[in-house]
């Protein structure tokens, strides 16, 4: 189990601590934030505001749904009046005048946002190594990455600095750090959580995700945050379920689960991960779920597909960072020079690499051969998965091939880091929900995450199943 002292679920905390719960939560959180400073999970801590808000909540009679929930916010999610930098030099000095819709909803529900979490620059990375503020570190071994891009969020949750953290997941950036740090990481169905206020990386893949130590907290946050936002045209107009009720109601259900063969037989799969998968397949079977092996022949094409689509969209989404209206601007005599210097100096190498790739796949002469092909391949995947989900309630696979890797291991071979995402990009490409559960440990005592996916908008089912594994 986790070697750190963390908060229990919010409802338990409120029961145990009574009326002073928000205040004691903030004090404990601030203490732990200080204690674990070296892990670099936080860029900014909003100490006074958190304490004030906690006082205010203590004096309030009516308890809002997220009364005193301590939340960490990834540095790519807007909080009005606060710096928002996407861990990048190019946004130094920028304060957002508005809050992300999800943030607003959480605040209205009584949550206490305690600070900005470290992450990879513009959410591009799998180790939180590409940050203007320096790397975040894995709490189980500080020489290892905590995962990325929501590394800081995962560390904060794992070490009890917060109850819940908001991250973002474009190719696995919530689930993978959750797996490396031994916490739960959940990416909702595309469109379930508004993206308004989330700094866009890849528009058709991004979702705000939630990291936590228990499913109840995730369900509580979803109950408040999910649902249509008029400021986000891609947010779903459908009515969203009452997640909290759903996870209580359906906990005893038995499901038909498909284990993806190509993942458990993957050439890069760590032996401890293979063992963990076998162990859990057996446990679930004994619990009464029906388990079968199922094939996903497209697996090897997913990272290629993802690289094309994500970089293409990112290359356009990052064009607005030009030094004109906000953030960093380099000194220059002409406009052209200003653009080039600002962006060359303001972006890190990984971000520039991806912008170049994205520009390439969209440029004339290459558009059909790369971008169009990737969109077609994506449809193949979506059709294939739709079919699978007609037969299976859930799909099961490892979150990552292996546990956390050492900081710097991919320094000379950045392209190889992309392959770490092989099991997580599926859900982003398909728009389906997915969750990483901290169900196992490597022989070295490092966390291993097992991933479950369901069809689009079956989030309540996914969460209730997940909750059932932690009784």
């Amino acid at each position, binding site marked *: 189990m986790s070697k750190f002292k963390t908060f229990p679920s919010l409802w338990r905390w409120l029961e145990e601590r009574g009326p002073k719960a928000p205040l004691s939560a903030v004090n404990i959180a601030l203490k732990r934030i200080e204690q674990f400073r070296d892990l670099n999970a936080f860029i900014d801590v909003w100490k006074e505001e958190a304490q004030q808000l906690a006082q205010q909540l203590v004096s309030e009679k009516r308890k809002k749904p997220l009364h005193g929930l301590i939340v960490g916010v990834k540095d790519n999610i807007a909080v009005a009046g606060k710096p*928002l930098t996407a861990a990048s030099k190019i946004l130094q000095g*920028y304060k*957002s005048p508005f809050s992300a819709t999800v943030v607003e909803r959480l605040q209205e529900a009584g949550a206490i946002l305690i600070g900005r979490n470290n992450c990879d620059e513009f959410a591009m990375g799998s180790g939180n190594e590409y940050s203007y503020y320096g790397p975040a570190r894995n709490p189980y071994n500080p020489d290892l990455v905590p995962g990325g891009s929501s590394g800081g969020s995962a560390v904060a949750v794992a070490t009890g600095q917060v109850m819940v953290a908001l991250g973002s997941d474009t190719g696995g950036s919530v689930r993978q750090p959750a797996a490396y740090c031994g916490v739960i990481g959940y990416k909702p169905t595309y469109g379930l959580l508004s993206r308004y206020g989330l700094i*866009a990386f890849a528009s058709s893949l991004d979702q705000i995700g939630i990291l936590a130590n228990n499913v109840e907290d995730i369900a509580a946050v979803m109950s408040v945050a999910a649902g249509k936002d008029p400021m986000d045209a891609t947010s779903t107009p459908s009515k969203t379920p009452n997640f909290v009720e759903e996870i209580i109601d359906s906990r005893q259900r038995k499901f038909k689960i498909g284990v993806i063969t190509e993942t458990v037989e993957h050439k890069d799969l760590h032996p401890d991960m293979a063992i963990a998968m076998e162990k859990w397949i057996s446990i679930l079977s004994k619990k009464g779920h029906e388990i079968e092996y199922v094939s996903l022949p497209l697996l090897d094409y997913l990272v290629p597909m993802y690289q094309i689509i994500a970089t*293409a969209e990112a290359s*356009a989404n990052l064009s607005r960072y030009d030094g004109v*209206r906000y953030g960093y601007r380099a000194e220059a005599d002409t406009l052209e020079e200003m*653009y080039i210097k600002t962006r060359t100096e303001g972006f890190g190498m990984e971000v520039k690499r991806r912008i170049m790739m994205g520009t390439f796949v*969209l440029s004339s002469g290459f*558009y059909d051969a790369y971008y169009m092909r990737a969109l077609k391949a994506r449809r193949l995947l979506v059709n294939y998965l739709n079919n699978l989900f007609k037969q299976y309630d859930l799909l099961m696979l490892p979150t990552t091939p292996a546990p956390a890797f050492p900081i710097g291991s991919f320094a000379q071979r950045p392209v190889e880091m992309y392959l770490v995402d092989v099991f997580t990009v599926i859900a982003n490409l398909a728009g389906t929900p997915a969750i990483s559960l901290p169900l196992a440990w490597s022989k070295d005592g490092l966390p291993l995450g097992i991933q479950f996916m369901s069809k689009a908008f079956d989030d309540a089912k996914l969460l209730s199943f997940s909750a059932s594994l932690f009784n």
Partner: protein
Amino acid sequence: MVGDWKPVIGLEIHIQLKTRSKNFSPEGYEYGAEPNTLTHPVSLAYPGTLPVVNKKVVEYATLLALALNAEIRKTFHFSRKNYFYPDLPKGYQITQYDTPICENGYLHFKIGKTWKKVRILRVQIEEDTGKSIHDIDPFYTLLDFNRAGVPLLELVTAPDINSPEEAQAFLVAVRQLVRHLGISDGNMEEGSLRCDANISLIPPGEDKPGNRVEVKNLNSFRFLRKALEYEIERQRQIYESGGTVERETRGFDAVKGVTFPMRTKEELHDYRYFPEPDMPPYELSQELLEGLKHKMPPLPFQLWKRYTEELNLSEKEAEFLIEDLDISRFFEEALKSYNSPKSILKWLMGPVRASLNQNSISIEQFPLSPQIIAKLAQIADKEIVHFTVASQKLFRELLKDPSKDPEKLIKELSLDQKADDSSIEDVVRSVLQAFPEKIEQYHKGKTGLLGLFIGESMKKLKGKADPRKVKETVLKLLNKEQ
């Protein structure tokens, strides 16, 4: 035709829509506001913002598509056009590249006495940029983002236009159309109507045009015509001296009256269009389409055909009616109450037009309703009151108080007091006495003089007599004279 050189011209017209809020961003817009007071995080492309389409923009675009008889795409999406410029906050413009809202339409316009048809290749929904001001500060370019995100429709014609005059007339027709549909002010001075032109020449004896030159920044109808005139001449001279016209983009210097090359490096404009992922496809409902079809006002060319072919009005009359489509609207309304086109026209082209001119108002501001005018026409036709009296006295009184009922007013002012038979006789006798030579001529066969006698009598009677009675009386007394 310039000599034997045939100009081939296509236009790219930008129409700024007069919605209350911008296209993909929710704030309001007003021409001439203080700089940077009408912006929003979305139109400024602040980190984390997203576009959402304004339904009114889609409605206006659909209305235009219907008016242009174009093939409407019921389901469409948007595209990103990527390039860097300081007045383009996102570093891309949201437009429609592969799914424009409509294609293959046409618009008729009048040039001289004939109607010409121009094919409309496509209309696409897009957004305007902010304004870059280069000439206030010598060291900086100044940026005003009020206009960033304002809705635009881009209308692209086929190269069906063959002279600068045609181009001007066509643009005027587009302006008239968008104003008539109520979707835009169509004001070139304020930038709510903009035009770029593509022009090439077909050499004498050949059938294919030479290279196309794009001419931009034409801020008025006059400049459009002048720029094209200059460009045609410029290209002709190049060809005649044995040279070739380069494919390029040129600006127009209004002061010097010349076009000049603009340094836009063609090969570096790779816009990398791709479907806009932040907005799912939009579908036009059958309901909306039907509703808009009903709302569609009739268009100039249709009206022309109706007036000249169905109603048999003269060209001059038809021209009058379609010059300001509000007048034709008024006319059609009046016809509903009294179906006599010529009579209604007599009033519109006569007293109504005079009143509008005198008071410098438009028909929209005219105080009398079409129904009242129809009533007046009816009254005059039925000779309850003579036209002269109705169009002067009665009309004037009604203008003073439009709420009055014409028939009541006639009674109040005793306008229908008919002279009795003996006063008619007295007046006719006195008229005839004044024209002894004419009476002689009349009896010698100049029967046309009858009109003179009747007219003079009516004048003396101040119109307050039944014209037939007057005629009868004149004839009676003339025959007596014999």
